[in-house]
């Protein structure tokens, strides 16, 4: 019986043959944390050890509230910088780098065949490049810092067979929302999700990152694309270390297989207040919005900003809407400057924010007042996530966000293309 990518990656780390359902103890390749490192440091101190076990494996990216929004956050950042210096942690990225889930791929940490854990629920993003990557808790992160070990249950795998091609105005975000809408937010609870099938190879690395990121909203432990030539090419010049890629065997055992035809897909939106409350954009078109957010770790890459710029070029943001743009990283920021996309967005009247999480988790920069409606390209629309409890969040693609920015009402992007 063949093995899935997840079984192979975890088995190689564990040094034995493993199959879904087993628990392995492994030494991860990288352990991610962000602004929550301040809380993790407190847990770490309870353990009574002075030094972290493997400083080179720890990756800390300040991204959640950058620059610090108030004194408390400033103090957290300060204590993290001090810890990083005292422990000699080399992989530290300060407030001018970007969102962790963009930074780890870009800076060559997210590599095929690696095991990466992170104290953030969207850690599965790195599966876009064929890594096994899963979210863990803060206590576990502290213990992993101390021991360089973590236990993981080898998940069963759900395969999603993609065929066909995205139509006009449709992208990876629409696909992820459609899947979650059709099958529920627990569709892949505890499972690995493999995005495969004849269309998978055509997905850009950015689109793969969007899907792997959204696999967290399917309940998945990890989500991935098999590393192919496209992934390997993207990693050229970025990879920090040698790696050897692994992929599922043709006769691997899947817990279930879902077939999806991209040709039939139309723009989708998740309506308040759950990610699986999904409707076609056309069905909710006309709903007035107060704010549009383009960016975040889900959809803040160059291709996303360019999709928005393509619609906003030569147009103005509707006067009743505030449009916030957050490039996912400074590298994306610079690329979008060079490509001209940022100039288009600024000319249209968008507010460009520092690369970070900001309003996505309701921490600062553009929160919502009671009764306000936001259409966002992020990944969660839970009640109160971006500000007041009585505000509403719709999730959609960058193209839908840009079309909505122009009209001030939820708008199907196909009207503009």
């Amino acid at each position, binding site marked *: 019986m063949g093995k899935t990518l997840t079984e192979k990656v975890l088995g190689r780390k564990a040094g034995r043959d493993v199959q879904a359902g087993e*628990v392995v103890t492994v030494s991860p390749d990288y352990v991610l944390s962000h602004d929550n490192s301040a809380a993790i440091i407190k847990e770490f101190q309870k*353990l009574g050890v002075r030094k972290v076990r493997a400083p080179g494996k720890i990756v800390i990216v300040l991204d959640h509230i950058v620059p610090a929004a108030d004194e408390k956050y400033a103090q957290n950042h300060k204590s993290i910088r001090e810890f990083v210096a005292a422990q000699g942690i080399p992989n530290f990225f300060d407030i001018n780098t970007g969102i962790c889930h963009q930074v780890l791929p870009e800076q060559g940490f997210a590599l095929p065949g690696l095991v990466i854990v992170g104290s953030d629920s969207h850690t599965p993003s790195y599966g876009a490049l064929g890594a096994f990557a899963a979210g863990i*808790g803060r206590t*576990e992160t502290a213990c992993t810092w101390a021991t360089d070990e973590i*236990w993981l249950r080898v998940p069963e795998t759900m395969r999603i067979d993609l065929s066909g091609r995205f139509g006009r105005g449709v992208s990876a975000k629409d696909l992820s929302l459609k899947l979650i809408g059709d099958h529920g937010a*627990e569709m892949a609870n*505890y499972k690995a999700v493999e995005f495969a099938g004849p269309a998978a190879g055509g997905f850009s690395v950015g689109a793969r990152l969007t899907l792997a990121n959204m696999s967290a909203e399917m309940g998945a432990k990890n989500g991935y694309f098999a590393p192919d030539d496209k992934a390997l090419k993207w990693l050229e010049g970025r990879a920090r270390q040698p790696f050897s890629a692994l992929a599922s065997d043709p006769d691997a055992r899947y817990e279930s297989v879902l077939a999806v035809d991209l040709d039939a897909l139309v723009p989708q939106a998740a309506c308040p207040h759950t990610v699986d409350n999904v409707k076609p954009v056309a069905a909710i078109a006309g709903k007035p919005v107060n704010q549009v957010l383009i960016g975040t770790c889900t959809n803040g890459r160059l291709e996303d900003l360019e999709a928005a710029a393509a619609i906003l070029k030569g147009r103005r943001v509707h006067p009743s809407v505030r449009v916030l743009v957050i490039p996912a990283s400074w590298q994306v920021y610079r690329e979008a400057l060079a490509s001209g996309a940022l100039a288009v967005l600024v000319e249209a009247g968008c507010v460009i924010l520092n690369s970070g999480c900001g309003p996505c988790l309701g921490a600062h920069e553009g929160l919502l007042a009671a009764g306000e409606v936001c259409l966002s390209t992020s990944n969660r629309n839970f009640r109160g996530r971006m500000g007041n409890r009585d505000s509403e969040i719709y999730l959609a693609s960058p193209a839908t966000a840009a079309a909505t920015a122009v009209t001030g009402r939820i708008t199907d992007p196909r009207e503009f293309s």
Partner: protein
Amino acid sequence: MSHGKVWKYGDNVNTDVIFPGRYTYQIMTPEEMARHALEDQDPGFAKSVQPGDVIVAGKNFGCGSSREQAAACLKAAGIQAVVAKSFARIYFRNAINLGLAVLQSEEAADRLETGDAVEVDLARGEIRSAKGTFRFHPLPESVLGIIAAGGLIEYTKTKLDAAENETAKE
């Protein structure tokens, strides 16, 4: 290995019925948490549960919120293991990291009923009862260690102390 009695429930036993949301922001001792265990699923549970008892349930046990109390309250109530067809991911990790054994066995979940006497052998990966012996993937030594230590923080502390003593001896 120890003996206990089965408490049987169905699919999707969620964290709200295991440990109601109305208590989540109150600071409670383990004993107080135990008194509310499974309150909204089975109001009689907390009064009659005995140390060593086992919960047997269907699919997706522990779905819902990430509250750690939903695992802590069962452990405090004396439950030695939860056997289910499947667990919600966060619940599974929380349970083990808090020292509660969570075991997956379709067969045991189908066959066992409330009141059955069972013996759970974590190391061998077996649940023994008059209805037969059911196998589950044995938990590896490290996870058994976490459960035996009473949770991840305690386990890690002990492990680190042991490592330190080793170095001291050298």
